[in-house]
């Protein structure tokens, strides 16, 4: 331990030999902020572009969409993609493109809100488990494991059936399903901080527990939480789409990707592939966009 320890956040530290790493850590003063490193990554830019596209659709969908997504044209049912209907029409003659554009709204409301709820609850629980340790950690750890052992979809169904598939219920239930997962990740990150001397130093300043948890530890586990948030966001998109495919999500006739796939997949055998393919591509592109962003954030934080 003679060489000055190179800071793990310095990008140079991982790419250099042991001795020079320490020296170059000093050279790396004025390293670009993580945000600047992020926007240099093509994967991030692609992911962000796709995500922004769907956010714009979610907000201004009705203005952008070429047709009213609810307007039925009974003379043009099951029309193949053409100049008038780029993505074709569905059995009721509704424009698939317009339904895909407007359908972004429900998923982009429910998935992020649910993830935020899960992250906030999970972070609070994880911080407490990691910081207090002991009996509290033991008991809540076992409860978390028990919850994780249950098939989360079934639980979600159960509650949705019981409480009704409203937007707010979806947000709460998906958020609660995510909570133990996030708590476990945050707890692990807190444990890595626990033995560091800055916490002892804080105790010697007479700081109380909540200040130590939220003022001292939380900022240091933020990167892990951020990564966990984006990972869970990807899953949330998928979960919301799956639930609406199964009929527990947004109810027809409101345009929704999962529900539209569910409504039309029977028509695949008839050769009306566009009614299923385009909403499916929309889900896939959104999930992949979130994953690309997650990956980039993870790499920037790790470097």
């Amino acid at each position, binding site marked *: 331990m*003679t060489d000055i320890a190179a800071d793990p956040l310095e990008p140079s530290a991982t790419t250099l*030999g042991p001795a*020079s790493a320490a020296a170059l850590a*000093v050279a790396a003063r004025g390293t670009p902020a993580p945000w600047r490193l992020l926007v240099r990554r093509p994967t991030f830019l692609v992911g962000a572009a796709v995500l922004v596209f769907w956010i714009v659709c979610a907000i201004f969908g009705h203005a952008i969409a070429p047709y009213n997504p609810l307007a039925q044209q009974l003379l043009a049912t099951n029309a193949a993609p053409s100049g008038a209907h780029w993505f074709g029409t569905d059995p009721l003659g509704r424009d698939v493109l317009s339904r895909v554009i407007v359908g972004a709204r429900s998923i982009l409301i429910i998935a992020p809100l649910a993830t935020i709820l899960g992250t906030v609850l999970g972070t609070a629980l994880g911080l407490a488990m990691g910081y207090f340790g002991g009996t509290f950690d033991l008991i809540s750890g076992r409860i978390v494991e028990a919850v994780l052992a249950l098939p989360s979809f079934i639980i979600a169904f159960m509650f949705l059936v019981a409480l009704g598939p409203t937007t707010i219920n979806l947000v709460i239930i998906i958020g609660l399903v995510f909570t133990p997962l996030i708590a476990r990740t945050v707890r692990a990150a807190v444990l890595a901080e626990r033995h560091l001397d*800055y916490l002892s*130093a804080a105790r*010697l300043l*007479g700081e109380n527990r909540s200040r130590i948890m939220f003022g001292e530890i939380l900022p240091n586990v933020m990167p892990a939480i951020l990564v966990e948030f984006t990972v869970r966001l990807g899953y949330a998109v998928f979960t919301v789409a799956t639930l609406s495919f199964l009929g527990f999500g947004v109810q027809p006739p409101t345009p929704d990707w999962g529900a539209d796939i569910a409504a039309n997949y029977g028509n695949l055998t008839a050769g009306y592939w566009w009614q299923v393919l385009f909403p499916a591509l929309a889900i896939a592109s959104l999930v992949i966009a979130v994953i690309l962003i997650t990956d980039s954030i993870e790499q920037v934080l790790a470097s």
Partner: protein
Amino acid sequence: MSEDNTALSVSHLDVTYRVRGQDRLALRDVSFSIGRGESYGLVGESGSGKSTAALALVRYLPSNGRVSAGTVSINGLDPLSMGPGALRDLRARTVSMVYQEPGRALNPSLRVGRQIAEVFQIAGQSGDDARQSAEQMLRKVQISDPGRVMRRYPHELSGGMAQRAVIAMALAVSPSLLILDEPTTALDATVEAEVLDLVAALRSEFQTSVLFISHNLAVIAKMCDRVGVLYAGELVEQGPAREVFDNPRHPYTVGLLRCIPRRGQRKDTDRLDTIPGFQPTPGQAMTGCVFAPRCALARDKCRTVEPPFFRVSDLRTSRCYFHEQAPDLPRNTPASIPSAGADGAGLAGGAGGADGLGGSLVVVEGLSKTFGGPRAGVRALAGVDLSIQRGETLGLVGESGSGKTTLARVLLGLTAPDQGSVVTLHDTPLSPDARRRPRPVLRALQIVFQNPDSALNRRHTVRALISRPLSRLAGLSGQALRDRLAELIASVRLEDRHLPLRPSQLSGGLKQRVAIARAFGGGPEVVVCDEPTSALDVSVQAAILNLLADLQTTERVTYLFISHDLGLVRYLSDRIVVLYLGRVMEVGPSETVFAGPHHPYTEALFSAVPSLDGERPSRIRLTGEIPSAADPPSGCVFHTRCPRRLPTGMCESTEPPLLEEETGHLIRCHIPLSELRTIQRNESAPSQGGSS
């Protein structure tokens, strides 16, 4: 030197790292050679390029590094132009390397025996032969029970034992060149001494040439015939080790040596010198001499034209135009202590020693700490009695596992001691939990941790870090807080521009200054310094030690100074406590303890530490590891390793009491002081004339 007599020759070696699209020169124009059977030391601070040099020799540079100029010849072979097969062969048979962390050099999932045997198998032996050779090799590195060690996994070995196993592997093929990169830095002083002795013995036995890389000048002085001093990627001075250290001829070497407390130096009489400025970052464009920006002797010529190597004597070279004036390099820090508080007042700050300074500030009685339950627990501290006098510096020494840090944490209320332990401050018993201690007590006891990276919250700014104790403990706010903050950062020699920065943007020395400022923020009475400089370079360490000494004078604090570096402890401490397995073995005024007679354990610690001031006269060696605190030896806990154990069996059966043998000097040993004096004087007598 003819080719046949040279094991390694390096000439005009440049190494470049490519970082973010830019080439950075980490090593430039490095030339040296090592003769057969010779031991050559490369010494330098972190970032000087020591390890880069070692890696470059056998082409182990990371993927973004390359040798951009120069040649290397090992045994007449050129590793830089070899094909992969020949290179593998060279690494397998001709060159061996030993690194700082033995734990990382061994494969954690293979038994030690198999790993060593593998080396012999690669050399062409059959399985059984290889196994036997491995056992023999382990015996050669003085592992007494090789069979048992061979069946172990690396994590089951102690650091010293693992490093021996690595050395055994390195020497298995009788390499002609052995590269040792900080081989003992991660080890305790007593273990370090054993490993260094071992390397020296094996070197003569195997006739191996050694390239020894270390930041520790004393270790290099002890181990090497010749030495090269590396600074910012350049070799600035070269020559026989003894001569270079006794009579340095480059301003950097001169400065570096002045940073180290030498025999006889004390904080109240001598200040350490420091080197101004910082080492340039690798790859920074430099014209002229690399050291010129920090050199008091530099003239215009130095800043424009790079000096060549000047021949100082037959065997010595120095890369300095003014190598003749170098020994008279003007000091950066005045040698005398500034009499800040004028006469008397300054002394009362603690510099004057312990006597007459107003009695005990902190008293510890019957302090025990058992980790992990009362039955099968590990007794980290066992009945420690101790007092800290107002204004003194109490040095706490001992090997790792002796309980130094636990003692500090108990004092601070970070670790609760066992029932019945008493810690008082101003004769008031303290709560075992810092959370229950009232604010004045928290104010009074603060700590500077060993590793500032761990001690400073990396998400907070310097301003936030230093302001917090001012508001929490000193109760300041608004303008008063800002004034005190300005005062505080000035007193630890930080600048305003550092305030908005986060720890990762600061160098190690600056980080430690922030940590010191935080400790002093509340106006403490006792500051625990837990190895505050062990993570720092020598030149940075000197500045921090000076700062601590100055702060003691101005802020009138008492220090509990924990360190494994006896030189530092001697320089700073007024009194010394020696801990072994959680027990106090010796306490006394610093000079008395150092002058001896000592407790045999203290004696062993002292003789284990290599010194720049020549070989210590008496040398007793501890063998074996520090016993487990979970199962301490009977009687005197030190008897298993004690070279002076009494033949009567008393040491094994009865724990000796801690007796006051002289005024203020307590020793826990069955051997009376007078007898210790006789033994220790007799042994040191023959060689005493040789030193100093």
